[in-house]
């Protein structure tokens, strides 16, 4: 029997798959459903201080290479969200609360409320690539990543994970900045800035014109980011980007990820994707002669 358990900075997971922030995580009902269908933990939609409607549609475009979205951080606001988080926690889910804000005090305030609802960890969305004034600028500045992480770290007593953008020249430097800010873990990568144009209509398809690309197309970008971060930082890394199968997950794990997050994979394989990935990880680990996920973490490094 292959051991699928893993640990991310004290967050104990029965299996290394997590629901990534952004899909099926605006309501407690959906969070709980995904957890019950096999995810080791679920990450909430990024929640801010106030309700936000997001952008007009089209906000999501299916492409042959993946999925492009500019949803624009819709969320009911941290007060309203209490009901959703508590519904998921009451059902037994392990919940990571994703938060955003406009400045360090706002991040800290939202994170403190989120933590008070009982979430087991906090994830900082430092890198939404398409919401102006909310994350984009932070993601481009090492100092900001450090400062924002520090503010949240000082405000909560649960592990804090900083989620980084791939839209930078050297993601490892940003990982080190988050680590200096006290991050207990690094999550990489957020979506890659992208656009699609309809030749027939002679215009970008997204109402916001550009957005973030996810899905299989960005997996090699994510694997490289995790590989670099694993060498650069001492805290655990969580890999995300284009994971649809156990094989994809193991690419990330062997590159250095202690756990993985899945999002667009749900489109291809449904919410059963978590259970499938678990089985595939177990059988592939057995095939290559590894007894546990923890043994596989980082083995791709010399």
């Amino acid at each position, binding site marked *: 029997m292959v051991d699928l358990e893993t640990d991310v900075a004290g967050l104990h997971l029965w299996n290394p798959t997590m629901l990534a922030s952004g899909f099926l995580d*605006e309501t407690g*009902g959906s969070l709980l459903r995904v957890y019950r269908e096999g995810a080791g933990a679920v990450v909430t*939609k990024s929640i801010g201080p106030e309700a936000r*409607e997001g952008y007009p*549609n*089209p906000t*999501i475009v299916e492409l042959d290479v993946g999925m492009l979205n500019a949803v624009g951080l819709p969320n009911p606001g941290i007060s309203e969200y209490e009901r959703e988080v508590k519904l998921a926690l009451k059902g037994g889910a392990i919940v990571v609360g994703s938060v955003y804000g406009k400045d360090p005090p706002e991040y800290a305030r939202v994170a403190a409320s989120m933590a008070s609802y009982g979430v087991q960890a906090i994830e900082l969305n430092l890198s939404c690539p398409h919401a102006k004034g909310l994350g984009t600028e932070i993601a481009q500045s090492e100092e900001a990543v450090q400062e924002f992480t520090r503010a949240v770290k000082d405000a909560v007593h649960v592990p804090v994970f900083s989620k980084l953008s791939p839209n930078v020249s050297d993601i490892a430097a940003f990982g080190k900045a988050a680590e200096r800010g006290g991050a207990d873990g690094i999550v990489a990568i957020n979506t890659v800035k992208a656009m699609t144009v309809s030749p027939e209509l002679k215009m970008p398809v997204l*109402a916001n014109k550009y957005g973030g690309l996810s899905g299989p197309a960005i997996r090699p970008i994510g694997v490289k980011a995790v590989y670099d971060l694993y060498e650069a930082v001492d805290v655990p890394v969580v890999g995300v980007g284009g994971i649809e199968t156990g094989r994809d997950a193991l690419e990330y794990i062997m590159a250095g990820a202690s756990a993985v997050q899945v999002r667009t994979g*749900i489109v291809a394989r449904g919410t059963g994707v978590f259970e499938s990935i678990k089985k595939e990880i177990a059988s592939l680990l057995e095939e290559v002669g590894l007894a546990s996920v923890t043994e596989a973490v980082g083995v791709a490094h010399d």
Partner: protein
Amino acid sequence: MIKTHIVPLLDVVRETHDTTTYRFRADIGGEPGQFVMVWIPRQDELPMALSYLGPVKGVTVRVYGDATEAFTSFRPGQRIGIRGPYGNSFRLEGERVLAVAGGVGMASLIAPIEAFSHQGARVTTALGARSAKDLLFVDRAQSAGEVHVATDDGSRGFHGFVPSLSDRLMDRHTFDQVVTCGPERMMKLVVDSALKRNLKVHASVERYMKCGIGICDACALDDRLVCADGPVFSGEALAASEDFGRWRRDKSGRRIPV
């Protein structure tokens, strides 16, 4: 390459004073009750039930905001984006069907009414609207079976709400199955009434949607998604639902009364 079909409109037909049908050719299949995401360029992308199946498809929409208002100015030849069809469909279960439609809910029910009739079922339609001028697809429903009309103002047919009319029909006739689409509180009355009579009942539920493909969570109904698990739900599922007839989500995900 995007998976959205960009298609020219073939025709634009004014059905009532505030409701219009847009027809287009798209080789995408489609079952009665399924919906497509319709991209109205520079406006919005909205879920709309297929009111015509077959090679030339159609959607029928009432003006309820800026995008649907702007859509009425579109002319044949202008292009729109279509993705889908998405969601599940109405399935015929028996030989005698009662279809209960309220207002523009008829846009979702007309395809199943016609399909069930073609499959040999005897279809009775109870069609409700505010006033005679709001009645939709009366002729198409009459070609598919018997039609009973209810109007809130009594300007045509039964004077009152359509659930009262459908209750009478359920009392007087035998049906194997009830299908319904319309305002949610209306559907709730129809569902409860059918369940009380031990009738199989299915309702097509409407919610705000962003993605249409089961990921954005905007259309959550309890722990189900209207786009992927619905839009058609069984009466039993709806009777057990905490949200149906009571709660929906606004664009930010806040839980608000239906």
